[in-house]
């Protein structure tokens, strides 16, 4: 099992917390911690992905810096998460991209948007700045679009699937076909409701300062459901196109449009709210190494919805080519960075919360328990 600065620090912090336990009411991290005496890499990977970085345990900690124990649970967990996202990434060497994530995501977006500009300009030739009768499919044909994004989407699915599988196995969950979903249902509910951004008492997390607030939970829900609605819009559109021979553009009172507009608004308000809270927040509990990863992901989500809505507004003008190039570039960057950026956090958190549902129910540690002991 690996041993790094980040796993060592998380284990040190948890050993002290486990002797204190004042924070056990706040969230799943501490309740899972109490089922254990030792903290190996698998265990701290698990605990770090249970942590929602709500900050309550930092602001309420009697051992927070400048105390000589210098406890900062959320920061230790945030930095460890950034490391273990890389550890579980597929293919393995791509995990290195988590180290300077903000930098590579930014660089990628520049390259991809530039490529889209070039490709669109070459494909559409003199018509780049022109009004098109069939909106943006006049600039790039639907089949080219669907083919490019389909291929990238397939790769993203495989990469994400392989990463999550690796994590799933480390978390000791039974395979997806033999899993008793009733036992992990609470974990799915806790993930979807962002239960652990409630501070433990339903008053909200300590974010951006020590005062409990629901703002982060609301903005995160807008971001998540906004993203899901946009995803639904695209999916419905694809089905309508290929299944029912109903190609875009769609009217405002159509499923793709309703989903897209609603989702787009959520995906504007949500990320702006989260970015604003992040800018205001006390930097100490956020972790030092992971800010680029967090911010670049939020910014990509925001740009996806902003450019998407902009494209909808200008699709019948001469700017459709420009808007389309930017939007597709942003979306492609988001796609490509999905397995190698902050996007993965949702999957790992979901899996960790599913395991926690089992551990809590059985009152017994599952993850990281050494095999020898299990046999004995």
């Amino acid at each position, binding site marked *: 099992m690996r041993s790094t600065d980040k796993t060592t620090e998380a284990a040190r912090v948890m050993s002290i917390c486990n002797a204190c336990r004042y924070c056990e009411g706040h969230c799943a991290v501490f309740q899972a911690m109490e089922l254990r005496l030792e903290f190996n890499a698998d265990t701290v990977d698990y605990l770090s992905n249970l942590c929602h970085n709500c900050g309550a345990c930092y602001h309420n900690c*009697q051992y927070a810096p400048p105390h000589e124990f210098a406890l900062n649970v959320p920061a230790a967990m945030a930095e460890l998460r950034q490391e273990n996202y890389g550890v579980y990434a597929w293919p393995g060497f791509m995990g290195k991209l988590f180290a300077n994530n903000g930098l590579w995501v930014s660089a990628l977006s520049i390259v991809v948007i530039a490529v889209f500009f070039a490709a669109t300009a070459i494909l559409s030739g003199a018509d780049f700045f022109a009004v098109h009768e069939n909106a943006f499919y006049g600039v790039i044909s639907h089949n080219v679009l669907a083919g490019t994004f389909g291929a990238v989407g397939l790769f993203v699915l495989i990469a994400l699937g392989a990463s999550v599988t690796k994590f799933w196995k480390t978390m000791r969950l039974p395979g997806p076909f033999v899993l008793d979903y009733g036992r992990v249902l609470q974990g799915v509910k806790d993930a979807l409701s962002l239960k652990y951004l409630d501070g433990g008492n339903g008053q909200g997390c300590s974010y951006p300062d020590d*005062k409990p607030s629901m703002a982060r939970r609301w903005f995160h829900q807008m971001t998540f459901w906004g993203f899901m609605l946009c995803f639904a819009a695209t999916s419905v559109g694809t089905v309508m196109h290929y299944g029912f021979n109903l190609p875009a553009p769609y009217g405002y009172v159509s499923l793709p449009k309703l989903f897209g507009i609603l989702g787009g608004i959520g995906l504007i308000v949500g990320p702006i709210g989260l970015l604003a809270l992040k800018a205001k927040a006390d930097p100490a509990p956020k972790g030092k190494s992971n800010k680029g990863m967090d911010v670049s992901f939020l910014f990509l989500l925001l740009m996806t919805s902003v450019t998407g809505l902009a494209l909808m507004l200008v699709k019948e003008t001469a700017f459709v080519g420009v808007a389309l190039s930017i939007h597709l570039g942003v979306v492609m960057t988001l796609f490509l960075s999905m397995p190698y950026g902050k996007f993965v956090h949702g999957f790992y958190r979901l899996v960790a919360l599913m395991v926690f549902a089992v551990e809590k129910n059985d009152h017994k540690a599952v993850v990281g328990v050494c095999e020898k002991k299990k046999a004995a």
Partner: protein
Amino acid sequence: MKTHHDHYDVLVAGGGQAGLIAAIVAAEKGARVCVLEGAPRTHRGGNTRHTRNLRPMHLGPLSVLSGTYDEEEYWEDLLRVTKGKTNEKLARMTLRKSTEAVDWLESRGVQFQPPLGGTLHLGRTNAFFMGGGKQLLNVLYRHAEGLGVEIHYDAMVTGIDIEDGAFKGLNVGEHRVTATAFVAAAGGFEANIEWLKEAWGDVAENFLIRGTPYNRGTLLRMMLDAGVQQIGEPDQCHAVAIDGRAPKFDGGICTRVDCVSLGVVVNENAERFYDEGEDFWPKRYAIWGRLVADQPNQVAHVIIDQKAKGGFMPPVFPAVVADTIPELAEKVGIDPVQLEKTITEYNAAAQPGSFDHTELDGLHTEGLAVNKTNWARTIDQPPYSAYSLRPGITFTYLGVEVSEKAQVQMASGKECPNIFAAGEIMAGNVLGQGYLAGIGMTIGNVFGRIAGSEAADYALNR
């Protein structure tokens, strides 16, 4: 440090629970209030930062508390631990007024947590703060600021001016402030080793202070020197046996070692000295600090075997581990021959029976100079673990005498008209000795409310 005004209606020294509550109550009554907190902002709140619960009397379920905990049962508990060293009138008033504590705090934003895991067995008597005492502090500081209470950090009172039993003003370094009424809530003197030595002798050099390093008793000493009536004995304090590797100051709760009853405890001479199985936590917890303080160099070692592992709250530092008793003794730094002899004799004296850590199981030894009366399993299954122990002082009981109105009494018998006290600085009025979980915060809460209210009334001429 410089206050915004030269004069206040109410001046509060100390920004722990008691001082903040006094300040809030006075401000809510319309007084102009200033709080002087001796610690920097990061360490604000005195020992409240290390607390976790208070103990309210209640008839029927109350907030997170289940069942009933009435005055008689509470009083019996207090009488038992203090062995009568309490002022019944003040104590009973404290118990009665403790009922309102939870509601008072909750209505100002303090969060309590439902009983969970390690707090389940105290779900009837003790109300636990969500996240611990620092959560309470953060909320109360925010609330006080919202009421316009002026708060200064790093503002240790360095001089106090009491004339004929009346408060005139005080100094924080060069800066002088006056006030119509004064609330003394600046804690005890546990971090003042010199003062502890006056009561304990040189052995106090070897004490670890679990509480805040800022409770040096400066204000308490100045008040006593100015003729205020003392209450309590200087050697009375909350003293528990904690991990010998804990920080000198500020170690708090996590430094406790809770496996004494599961093993044997030896001193530096590798000899046992007290019945490890006498009673349950928390009584056991509260006596072992004094027991260790009486041993050579104020050191002891608790020794357990593999059977005990996982059966107690995990200590903050790892155990010293070895496969044989002599090897363990070498690692710990005590005589291997003597330790092996002690353990062998103990094992031979252990009587058969069944072990049950959840009750006084009567599993005992026979024929030893110091017998173990419960949970006396043999120590024979390697690997063996040892934790070193030292006395850990959490807070002190010597303080200033107060009336039911939290008014400070002079040694001359006179009552100070405008000096009030709350919290650890006067806890000895109610708790002269012993300890009851959550009683310190209960006293601070009740007297904080009384002191704030009385001080405001005096200052505003009501």
